[in-house]
């Protein structure tokens, strides 16, 4: 598998606060990576550094081997990433249908695997709420819409930041089911979530961040792993 996106030696700051300390992080095509760590350890900052939302002061970000460090966020996203941010990011003046239609575009290789119809088949609840404003949906429906909107861009890499946070267990299960089926289609993903047990079974690789540094990067974690107990608190 070739590397799709990689950050090398990333040092990111918020003002004088040094948040990422020389992180190396990469995702290969088709790979599902779980990004784990307690709150404030740098998970979201790492994602934002990769996407150019926050520019690292040192280090390099590459996509398919091309240097995209310092590039505009929209230009990085256009290279095949769909980003579902924490908080879902609904627009209160757009309906469900408008959210989906505005994002529709073929993948970088011309793929149109994810169509409007397929999204509605995947999330039948959305089909019932097409005329509703995005912010008038329940939390679970908003999350489905956020994922559906992301898939409408036919991405190579899907980034899910706390996709199941604050959702009822039944809805959460539904979201995980969809994420599993997305994985089966060969789309790479980076998943940030507090549900460690699900991540252990789902992801191909696990990366644990502690205070802005990678303390674990591998695929042999189990629920009993000492490092999980020490750094995640499981």
């Amino acid at each position: 598998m070739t590397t799709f996106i990689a950050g090398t030696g990333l040092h990111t700051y918020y003002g004088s606060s040094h948040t990422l300390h020389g992180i190396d992080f990469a995702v290969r095509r088709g790979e599902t990576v779980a990004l784990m760590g307690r709150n404030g350890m740098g998970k979201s900052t790492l994602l934002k550094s990769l996407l150019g939302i926050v520019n690292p002061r040192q280090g390099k970000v590459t996509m398919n081997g091309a240097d995209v460090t310092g590039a505009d966020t929209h230009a990085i996203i256009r290279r095949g990433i769909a980003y579902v941010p924490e908080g879902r990011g609904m627009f209160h003046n757009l309906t469900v249908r408008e959210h989906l239609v505005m994002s529709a575009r073929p993948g970088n290789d011309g793929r149109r695997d994810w169509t409007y119809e397929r999204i509605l088949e995947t999330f039948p609840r959305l089909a019932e709420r097409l005329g509703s404003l995005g912010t008038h949906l329940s939390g679970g429906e908003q999350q489905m819409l956020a994922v559906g909107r992301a898939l409408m861009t036919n991405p190579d890499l899907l980034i899910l930041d706390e996709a199941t946070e604050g959702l009822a267990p039944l809805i959460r299960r539904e979201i995980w089911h969809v994420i599993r089926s997305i994985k089966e289609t060969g789309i790479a993903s980076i998943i940030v979530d507090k549900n460690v047990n699900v991540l252990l079974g789902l992801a191909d690789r696990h990366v644990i961040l502690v205070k802005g540094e990678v303390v674990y990067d591998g695929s042999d974690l189990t629920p009993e792993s000492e490092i999980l107990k020490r750094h995640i608190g499981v």
Partner: protein
Amino acid sequence: MSRLPRSLSILLSVAIILLGAYPLFGDVLFPNKHAFLMQKLTGIMIMAVMAMSLDLLVGVAGLVSMGHAAFFGLGGYMLAMLSPEYSAANLWVVLPAALVVVAIASAMVGYLSIRTSGIYFIMVTLAFGQMGFYFFNDSKLAGGSDGAYIMVKPAVEILGVSLLNLGDKRTLYYVGLGALVGVYLLLRVVLASPFGRVVSAIGVNENRVRGLGFDPVAYKLLAFTIGGTIAGLAGFLAAIQYGFVNPATLSWHHSGEALVMVILGGMGTLFGPAIGAFVFELAKMGFESVTEHWLLPMGAMIIGIVLLLPKGVGGLLLQLFSGRSKMEGGQ
């Protein structure tokens, strides 16, 4: 932009039909004032076009421009400068030429101002607007501070056959009405397109739109250019109506009036700012006829509407006809 409730669409259609019928029965209702009112309504419909074009920027894209009148004035000045002194200009030549010039000017001003935001954007557009004002005020290009006359209305002909006589007040009234309806429908189509949805989303959260892979600068620039060009069309029509242009049409006072129309009508609703133009101009006319200190009650009315109807008249209508507000963006 959400679809309008059916009952509200019907109400607006009835209002347009009544406007269309006014020239036919106006002299029965207002025998002494019919001609004056018809001219007044023509001017209001043209201002409604201007207000809708500003709504695309302020209410939809979140770009509060205080220089929008510059494009309105430029549209009028283009007609004055392109018209022969004592014969009629060809509308099929001068209208596209004027719109192209205004579009280029809008794109240039937009390009230089779009990268700023908030108060800085307001200041930059205000500065560009005032540059336009002083350009025409202080140069001898088109009469300087005295302005310029359009002695003969443009001719609307095909193969030598006159289609419309723009010198006829009733004809011009229907041209104004056609512009009002045509621009409204055009902007509805634009806002219903994927482009329009992205612009609407930018007005809510620009960073979120960037995170979806769209370049907000490009979208805002195109919206700014479309809005400016439509304002130029309004200015062009106003110049035909009054047969005169002066630098005041480009001034920030005029931009401010258009902004008040948008706020009174309800930002982001498109039909609201058109209603706002009617509310503003008719109230102004009413207060002027009662007192020479008309600005005082006018100010009180504006404050009252803003306090009581924070989403404007358009927001109130949406609430009444849909049972709940579908216009959360119009803050």
